[in-house]
């Protein structure tokens, strides 16, 4: 049991780290495409790891099934949203940042 708790704590910490890194990336990256790359991690890796960590702490199977459904939903919708944003931006001609350009 103690092993499960340690594993769950590690997963939760890793998830939090990914979310914080996503927030930092959103503020620090130079253009639109790199910024959605950073925020995409919040949805998939961050929330996914946190849900996995919570999954190891569930005591009833109903709660576990609900967490799994949420996890599946996020795995499907998160990357779709990121892809759509990038696609729409590309179609609208949002310029890509190159080395040496200023941040926009």
């Amino acid at each position, binding site marked *: 049991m103690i092993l499960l708790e340690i594993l769950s704590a590690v997963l939760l910490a890793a998830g939090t780290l990914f979310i914080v890194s996503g927030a930092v990336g959103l503020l620090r990256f130079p253009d639109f495409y790199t910024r959605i790359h950073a925020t995409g991690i919040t949805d998939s890796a961050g929330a996914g790891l946190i849900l996995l960590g919570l999954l190891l702490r569930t005591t009833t199977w109903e709660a576990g099934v609900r967490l799994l459904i949420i996890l599946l*939903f996020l795995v*499907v*919708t998160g990357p*779709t949203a990121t*892809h*759509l944003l990038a*696609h729409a931006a590309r179609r609208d001609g949002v310029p890509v940042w190159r080395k040496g350009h200023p941040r926009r």
Partner: protein
Amino acid sequence: MTTFTVINFTLLTILTVTALVIARLRALYEAAMLTALSSLVTASLFVLMDAVDVAFTEAAVGVGISTVLLLGVLALTRSREAVTPRHRHLPAIAVTALTGGLLVYAAQDLPAFGSADSPVQRHPVTEVYLHQSQKEIGVPNTVTAVLASYRALDTLGELVVVFAAGTAVLLLLGPLTHGKRRQNLDLMEYKVLRVVSSLLMPFVLVFALYVLFHGDFGPGGGFQAGVIFATGFVLHGLVFGLDKSQRVLPPAALGSLVPLGLGLFVGLGVVTMLLGGSFLDYGTLLPTGGPAAQHLGILTVEVAIGITVAAVMTSIFFAFAGRRPTR
């Protein structure tokens, strides 16, 4: 307790900051997206207050449907806010400060959050709703028992409000079919979105049915199910285009569903009167009476609410998406 305080405080701060930013923004697309954010935060606050039913509705309507409707309106008009003349700022600030001040003054009379001697806790009707209802109605979720049985007439009133609002919007926007004159809102060229939304569509509709029929046992009911149904149809209309959506759900059928739900609700009331009870007295529906008859009545009412709410929301979306800029 402290964790809750911290979470509540954080969410309220985000809500306030979002509201301030919305007030300062001139670009209306950004403002529409930020209203969705404020609705999401509000929904989270409702969850913290254990009002999951309200959170459902806020998430589906505030974040989903109303954002789509706002964007649809912006597609029809200009997307930048006109600059307000400086001489109008002072009256605006005065009116806002007065309204806000009045609200804060009125809030002083409210009992403290979770207070033990508030009327909610001490009034005799609380005992009836929380304990007697388990015997009389036999529905584990007291909210549903109060909403659909004890106060069914109030709920009918709410449904009439939804019906009237929907009818007014549809009358203003004109008939649902506009022939070929419509803006191109569909996102058919996004293949990933198309695949993912057709993958999720059945689950959205099944979830709406679950919320509808599970309202007796957990949070949910007709209003929530109706808006979730509508979110599914709005998603379909956005991704596959209005033409395909209206082939699935013809405007004439949708238009007749709007009064159908209300008619079902009122009809049930009339039936109970004909059976010898008072208006919406479900006990008369079965000869045995009791919880079984109550269940039947509550289920009928929830279905009726779901039909009207879903039809109103979906037809408002169709009406907006079916128009074309008049510029």
